[in-house]
């Protein structure tokens, strides 16, 4: 399973590195969203600083959707999804590989967005341990849930519009918990943040487990 996961993740990341869609489109889109929010909320630094964590995670969600959609678009060109079925790779391995590749892209995106939030919103980073654990759990959760719903939508003609409708409500708890945990870390009140971090890890565990079990049959039906 782990060998198959590494193979699929390596293939997906190589496709992204060659196509440069992430660098040329997803990252600029994410930064643009941050800038647009800054304009929309006026140039009041206190307001921007206060809502920074929420805006950061909303931007991660929207940008993450693009990465998830992209992960399945590459499998729809020239019936590559049939090739994935025919490969004989373990379904759980394919899931972990695809989710891992999405998570790696999200992690890079979060670093860029964190810099953007610091510069544009004047946010001062505190509580690095809680921030890192929040990003880790939220990233795994978003990537796992997105990959599960990505394969559900993959075989449908309306997949491009259906995926956000399916995924965003599911990711609402991640958005809420990650924003609250980051707010607590930045405010220097970590005790308020740990329950949200635990919730994020529970969410990530549930969706990783579900994906490992269900992705193979879902791929066959897609």
């Amino acid at each position, binding site marked *: 399973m782990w060998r198959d996961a590494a193979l699929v993740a390596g293939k997906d990341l*190589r496709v992204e590195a*060659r196509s440069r869609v992430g660098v040329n489109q997803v990252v600029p889109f994410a930064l643009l969203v941050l800038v647009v929010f800054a304009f929309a909320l006026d140039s009041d630094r206190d307001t921007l600083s206060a809502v920074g964590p929420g805006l950061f995670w909303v931007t991660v969600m929207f940008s993450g959707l693009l990465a998830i959609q992209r992960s399945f678009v590459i499998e729809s060109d020239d019936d590559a999804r049939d090739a994935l079925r025919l490969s004989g790779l*373990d379904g759980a391995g394919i899931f972990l590989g695809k989710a891992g590749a999405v998570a790696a892209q999200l992690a890079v995106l979060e670093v860029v967005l964190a810099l953007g939030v610091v510069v544009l919103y004047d946010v001062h980073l505190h509580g690095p341990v809680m921030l890192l654990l929040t990003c880790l759990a939220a990233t795994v959760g978003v990537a796992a849930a997105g990959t599960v719903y990505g394969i559900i939508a993959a075989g449908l003609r309306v997949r491009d519009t259906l995926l956000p409708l399916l995924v965003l409500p599911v990711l609402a708890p991640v958005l809420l918990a990650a924003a609250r945990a980051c707010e607590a870390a930045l405010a220097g009140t970590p005790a308020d943040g740990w329950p949200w971090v635990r919730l994020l890890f529970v969410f990530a565990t549930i969706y990783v487990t579900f994906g490992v079990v269900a992705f193979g049959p879902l791929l066959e039906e897609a």
Partner: protein
Amino acid sequence: MSLLGRFPALAGVDLDVAAGEVVLVQGSNGAGKTTLLRACAGLAAFGSGEAEVLGHDLRKDRRAVRRCIGLLGHATFLYDDLTVADNLTFAARSAGVDRSAAAEAMARLGLDGRLRDVPAGKLSAGQRRRVALAAVVSRRPDLWLLDEPHAGLDAAGRNVLDEIVLDAARAGATVLLASHELDRAAALATRTVTMAGGQVTGGLLVPREPIHVA
């Protein structure tokens, strides 16, 4: 039986193929040739019936079957952003085969020169077809499922394909070949099967020297 919409795409197909055989599946458009090959790969849903491929129950152990087969279909199954070498390496390694098989396949299909590092999306249709064949070769399959394999290949590519099919059969692999190019395909086949309306309507042993399993 395999269902296409509400109508059975395959019905009453009873086919037993031995190792080392090259079976030409012929029939008019819509006869069920492609569906038969896809069914053997576990890509077409079965309504009823049984299928055993390479000793594995196709219903229960699709993954084991798929690790041992190579399907050359109408689509090329290539990732446009990956180079020829990357595509073939992924095909080989996903079948559990060493990456050296990809290099051998590239050499055999004449893809080891300047085409090696070209993204698949920048290749011509004929070149993509050649890479798709190389991907099947790099998997070193025990069962070759070739759907119109000569289509899109130039004369040299067709000759290489014929050699590959005969070599595979000599090495003990089984080949199912669906083709409209009957003269060319019949020269490779040890047996022909005729299909119509999703059923096998006829079969013929080709009177030529059989290919012996090594």
